[in-house]
C-alpha cells in the first residue's frame, strides 16, 4: 500500500505506515503531487459502487448500496394515513437516517451520532426539493386517505461520503418500491388486501389496482468532493475527510439541474473555477450512478 517515499527528510528513513500515522497531511500531499491517492485511485475517480435491490423482504421497497466500504441499507414501509387539511390530495414521506454504533468508532453506544440528524435533514430536503416523487401520487382517496412512506436508512459502515451513499440507497429503494394493494371496506375504511389469493372473496375493488409503482421523475444523484489547495478529490474516504476538512457536496438530477450545492464551511474557499470543476465531476458521476441503477433495476425485472 502506498508509494515509496523517495525524498529527503524523515520520510526516507521511516516506514510508510509510520509516516502515514505521524504526518497524515504530508503523506497525502506527497501522493496528491503525483495525482494519485493512497488507495490507487486518480483524484477524480469515485470508489466502486454496487447496489442490491430488494434486500429486506418485509419492507415494501429496499436497497443495499455500497460505495467502497461505505454501506447503507434503505427500506421503505408504506402506511395509510389521513392527509392534512392543507393538502388533502397529497401523501407524505418521512425520512430518517440512523447511525448505529457498529458503523464507526466515532459513534458510541447510548449517544446519538451528531452527523445523523444533519444527514437526515439534508436527505429530506434533497428528495423533496428534487421533485423526484409527486406527492399527489401517494394519494388514495382525496381528503380521506393517503400513503405515508417511512424511509429509514441505516448506515452499516461509515467510511466517508455518507450523504452520497445514503441518497443513492434512498433513490434505489424508491425505484424498488411496490405499493401494497388496498381496498375500501364497508365502513369506508382502507384495508390492505393480503396477496394470498383471497381476492375472489372481496366484493370491493382494490382502490389502487394500477398504481403499484411510483413514477420517478428526474432522479437526484450526488458526489462529495474534498477541496485541498488546488486539488479536488472525489468521493473521499473517512480518513481523507478527517485530514482534509473542506467538503463540497453537489447534487444534480438526471437532467443536469442543480438540486443542491452544499459546502458547510471549511478552510479552503471555493472559487468559481472550483465550483465548475465540482459540477463537472458530478455530471460524470451522475451518468455512472444512473447506469448502475438501471442495471440493478433491469436485473430485478429478469428475476
Amino acid at each position, binding site marked *: 500500500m502506498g508509494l515509496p517515499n523517495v525524498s529527503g527528510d524523515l520520510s526516507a528513513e521511516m516506514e510508510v505506515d509510520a509516516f502515514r500515522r505521524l504526518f497524515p497531511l504530508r503523506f497525502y500531499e506527497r501522493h496528491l503531487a503525483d495525482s494519485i491517492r493512497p488507495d490507487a485511485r486518480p483524484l477524480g475517480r469515485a470508489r466502486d459502487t454496487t447496489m442490491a435491490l430488494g434486500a429486506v423482504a418485509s419492507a415494501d421497497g429496499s436497497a443495499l448500496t455500497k460505495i467502497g466500504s461505505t454501506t447503507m441499507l434503505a427500506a421503505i414501509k408504506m402506511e395509510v394515513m389521513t392527509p392534512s387539511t392543507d393538502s388533502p390530495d397529497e401523501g407524505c414521506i418521512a425520512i430518517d437516517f440512523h447511525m448505529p454504533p457498529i458503523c464507526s468508532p466515532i459513534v458510541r453506544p447510548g449517544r446519538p451520532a451528531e452527523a445523523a440528524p444533519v444527514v437526515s435533514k439534508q436527505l429530506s430536503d434533497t428528495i423533496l*426539493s428534487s421533485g423526484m416523487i409527486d406527492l399527489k401520487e401517494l394519494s388514495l382517496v382525496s381528503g380521506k386517505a393517503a400513503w405515508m412512506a417511512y424511509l429509514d436508512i441505516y448506515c452499516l459502515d461509515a467510511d466517508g461520503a455518507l450523504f452520497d451513499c445514503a441518497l443513492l440507497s434512498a433513490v434505489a429503494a424508491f425505484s424498488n418500491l411496490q405499493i401494497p394493494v388496498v381496498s375500501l371496506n364497508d365502513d369506508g375504511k382502507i384495508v390492505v388486501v393480503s396477496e394470498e389469493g383471497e381476492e375472489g372473496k372481496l366484493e370491493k375493488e382494490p382502490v389502487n389496482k394500477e398504481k403499484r409503482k411510483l413514477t420517478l421523475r428526474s432522479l437526484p444523484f450526488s458526489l462529495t468532493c474534498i477541496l485541498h489547495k488546488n486539488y479536488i478529490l472525489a468521493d473521499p474516504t473517512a480518513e481523507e475527510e478527517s485530514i482534509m476538512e473542506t467538503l463540497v457536496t453537489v447534487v444534480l438530477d438526471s437532467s443536469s439541474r442543480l438540486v443542491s450545492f452544499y459546502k*458547510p464551511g471549511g478552510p479552503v474557499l471555493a*472559487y468559481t473555477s472550483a465550483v465548475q470543476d465540482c459540477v463537472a465531476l458530478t455530471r460524470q458521476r451522475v451518468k455512472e450512478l444512473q447506469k448502475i441503477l438501471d442495471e440493478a433495476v433491469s436485473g430485478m425485472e429478469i428475476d
Partner: protein
Amino acid sequence: MEIDRDDGRTPNQLRPLACSRNILHRAHGSASWSQGDTKVLAAVYGPKAGTKKNENPEKACIEVIWKPKTGQIGKLEKEYEMILKRTLQSISILTINRNTTTSVIIQVVHDDGSLLTCAINAACAALVDAGIPMKHLAVAICCCLTEGGYVILDPTKLEEQKMKGFAYLVFPNSIHSVLPEGSLLVEGEAVEHGIITSVTHGLMSVEEYLNCLERGRAASAKLSDFLRKSIKLQLPTDSFKS
C-alpha cells in the same frame, strides 16, 4: 428585471440592517444583528479549558448552541448548528488557543426569512466582541430565485416560501490591506469572492446558481462595509466602559 416585491424593495435591495455589540453583561462577547424583522442575538463564552470528545485537542474547538424562538430544537436547528460551527471554525485561527472550547449561543428573537445568514452575521460580530482570534470576518447573504430566473436578495419569510429556490452564501469580508492590490488575488479572483459556505434549496440550473453567486458577491461587499463600520464605531465606547 421587473419583479414586484411586497415591501416595495428593488431586487438587489437589502432590508435595513442593525447591529449592536456588547449588549449582554455576563457573556464574554455578544451582539445582536437584525435584517428587517429578522433578529438574532449571539453570545460568546470562552475560550474555556479543554475540548469535547471527538474533537482535535491540538486545535481550538467551537461549539454552537442554537436556541429557537419557541419550542425544542429539531433537525433543522441541528443542521444550522453544524453549518454555523464549520463556518466559524473556518474563519477563526484555531491554532492560538489550543485545547480550548468557545461556546457560541444563538438566540432567535424573530424569524422573518434569511434566518441562517442573520445568525452567521450575528455570531461573527459576537466573536469579534469577545476578542476571539480570527483570520477575517464572514458575511452571509441569502439569494432567492424567482420562477422567471430572477435573483432577489435578502428575502422575507413570505418571499422564501413563494420562490422556487434559494441559496445561503457566506463570503469572506473584503480585506482592506496595505499590500498592493494584485497580491490579494487567488486564481485571478479576489479573495472575498471565494465561498466559505453554500447551502441551497430547490431546483435551479447551474447557470442560475452562478448568477446567484455573482449577485451575492456584489451584495456581500455592502454588508461587509456595514459590518466593518459597526465594529469600528463601537470601539471608543468599549474602552470607555472598561
